[in-house]
């Protein structure tokens, strides 16, 4: 029997998770032992825990990339930055929830505990380096979000959303597990490093088995990141969930699933014709960018529109992933097409550093923008309309600029950032990702991306037009006031503009070499 030997070093990457879990357990127990009527302290505990966890993660991000915990986890800047951004998203979502739940008389320690557990799951997912660990951590994150989705069950929508999310999420997780089992059957390993070493031989021996496994793993991830054609659940679930939870799902869950997908597939494409992963990811990116934006176009329900828009944003991130897998050597004179990689200079440069920087910056930008946008919506929701379902209609935003200019200005800022208008963080994120894609030779796809984001500007600006140019209806709702909600929105707005004007050292941190373990 070999007794494993751990040093403190091994536990560095899971320290943020430890902080989040400890705070979650304290919150869970606080509901049992403390019977105070005001529960804002719970939100403050949760927010402080996410700040501490985020700080540890930022500190970890400057460690050299390596395998830890017997090869089940990695410590690399990619996962550490993701953890830090997940903590930022959780911090904002917790603050938004405090006002939201208080307004509905539904503040409970369990809610914040589940949010912190979900954040812990996201962080663990981003650093998993082994299939079984990956699956378990994906389930930690999913189970917590299923419960959060069905937390407030007023009217039929939340129950429907929770159930739909549970069934489809379980289905997606089963696909992923099935794929991992087939890959284990082909390679005899579950650790990604060992799988990648054994894949070329396995691919030569039984290609069908490997293809089936890779396809199922990809389908499982595509469900989680809501890529077209695996996006069907997104609008219903995002609409039915409590709005701060939707915000956390659109930012954190998606970011963690993306990072896990990139990490897994960097290991899984060994020994396979490089054209295949490139084509698959390009097709997914194309469908998701165009599909998400076109589906968002007719929506009058702002929350549903943001759900479709989050699909479109997943498409832009997939564009970056496709650039990562673009073939490095292409014959000069090959045709320029939507899916073909034709570098402008003949041979493609290695764009991986630019792609990692683009992906991380995009995730950061989308986190602050999406939290802000969903946060503004959550403040405008009216409790008595929850069962009627027109809570999020565009009309509700009419004339907001005259009634509450500050709120309207913040919402306009978030909409512009989602649309990718300078000087916001949304613009810079798109710029980094699209320029990386062009450098990798994906000129056609990048053009499609820019065009589809122009479609996006239409429905984002429609909200701004309603707020600033339409008269307010008589029964227009006033946003509820709670200092935590206002703090969260001000923080998001400051970050959206601040990062858009002065990305500064953050882009330098995101573009260091040795970002992802093993690459």
């Amino acid at each position, binding site marked *: 029997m070999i007794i*494993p030997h751990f040093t403190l070093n091994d536990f560095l990457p899971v320290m943020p998770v430890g902080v989040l*879990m400890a705070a979650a357990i304290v919150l869970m127990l606080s509901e049992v032992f403390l019977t105070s009527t005001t529960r804002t302290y719970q939100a403050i505990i949760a927010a402080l825990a996410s700040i501490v966890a985020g700080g540890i993660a930022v500190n970890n991000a400057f460690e050299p990339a390596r395998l830890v915990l017997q090869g*089940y*986890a990695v410590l690399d800047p990619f996962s550490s930055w993701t953890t830090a951004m997940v903590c930022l998203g959780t911090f904002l979502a917790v603050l938004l929830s405090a006002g939201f739940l208080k307004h509905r008389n539904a503040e409970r320690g369990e809610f914040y505990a*589940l949010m912190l557990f979900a954040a812990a799951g996201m962080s663990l997912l981003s650093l998993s380096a082994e299939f079984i660990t990956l699956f378990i951590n994906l389930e*930690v994150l999913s*189970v917590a979000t299923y*419960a959060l989705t069905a*937390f407030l069950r007023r009217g039929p929508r939340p129950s429907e959303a929770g159930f739909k999310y549970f069934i489809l999420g379980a289905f997606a997780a089963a696909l992923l597990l099935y794929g991992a089992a087939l890959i284990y059957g082909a390679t005899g390993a579950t650790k990604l490093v060992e799988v990648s070493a054994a894949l070329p031989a396995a691919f030569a021996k039984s290609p069908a088995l490997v293809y089936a496994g890779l396809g199922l793993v990809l389908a499982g991830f595509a469900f989680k990141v809501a890529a077209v054609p695996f996006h069907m659940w997104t609008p219903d679930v995002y609409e039915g969930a409590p709005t701060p939870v939707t915000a956390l799902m659109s930012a954190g869950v998606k970011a963690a699933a993306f990072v896990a997908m990139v990490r897994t597939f960097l290991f899984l494409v060994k020994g396979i014709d490089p054209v295949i992963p490139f084509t698959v990811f390009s097709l997914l990116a194309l469908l998701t960018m165009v599909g998400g934006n076109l589906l968002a176009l007719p929506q009058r329900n702002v929350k549903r529109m943001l759900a479709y828009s989050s699909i479109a944003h997943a498409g832009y991130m997939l564009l970056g992933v496709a650039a990562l897998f673009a073939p490095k050597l292409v014959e000069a004179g090959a045709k320029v097409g939507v899916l073909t990689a034709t570098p402008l200079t003949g041979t493609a440069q290695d764009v991986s550093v630019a792609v990692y920087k683009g992906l991380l910056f995009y995730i950061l930008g989308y986190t602050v923008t999406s939290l802000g946008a969903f946060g503004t919506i959550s403040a405008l929701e009216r409790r008595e309309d929850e069962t009627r379902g027109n809570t999020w209609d565009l009309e509700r935003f009419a004339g907001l600029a005259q009634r509450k200019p500050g709120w309207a200005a913040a919402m306009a800022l978030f909409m512009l950032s989602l649309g990718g208008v300078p000087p916001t963080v949304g613009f810079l994120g798109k710029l980094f990702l699209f320029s990386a894609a062009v450098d990798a030779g994906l000129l056609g796809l990048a053009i499609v991306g820019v065009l589809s984001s122009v479609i996006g500007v239409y429905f984002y600006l429609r909200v701004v037009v309603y707020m600033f140019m339409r008269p307010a209806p008589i029964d227009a709702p006033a946003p509820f006031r709670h200092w935590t909600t206002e703090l969260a929105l001000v923080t998001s707005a400051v970050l959206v503009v601040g990062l858009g004007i002065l990305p500064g050292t953050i882009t330098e941190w995101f573009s260091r070499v040795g970002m992802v373990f093993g690459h």
Partner: protein
Amino acid sequence: MNAEQVLFWLFSVCTLVAASGVIFARNPVASAMSLVATFFFLSGIYVLLWAHTIAALQVLVYAGAIMVLFLFVIMLLSLTDSGPVLHFTPSRIAGGVAVIALFVSLTAVFRKLPTAELTWVGDAAKLKNFGTIQHLGEVMYTQWLFPFEAVSLLLLVAILGAVVVAKPRI
């Protein structure tokens, strides 16, 4: 055909027959009882794979505890016979086609697998231990420590989630 093969065919045919019973039985209790039979025969296959502990756990946990839960649910729902279930709607036909397509593709995948007989490559001492609780415990608490701890987090989250969702109204 040696004894192991006889047992394998016995268990696998019985598993399939019992599993079909789960789907085709009209009476929900009969369906649940077929599921118990499926679990029992499946645990026989686990024994043939040297996974004695898994086989014992299968009988204890699935055929024992989980089936009791199933029966409780059936009892509480007090299901009545709601007419024939076998009529064709477009979604059911599509589902059937998908099942057949999945079966065909899986068959294609498994036909590509190497056909050479599998031989035991480990040493005799390992063979003696393999599948025992001691071996399982050693592997789980030394080699698979991190996933094992992750599962405990998952269980905690699942319990908390179940409590939250089961509350009548928040």
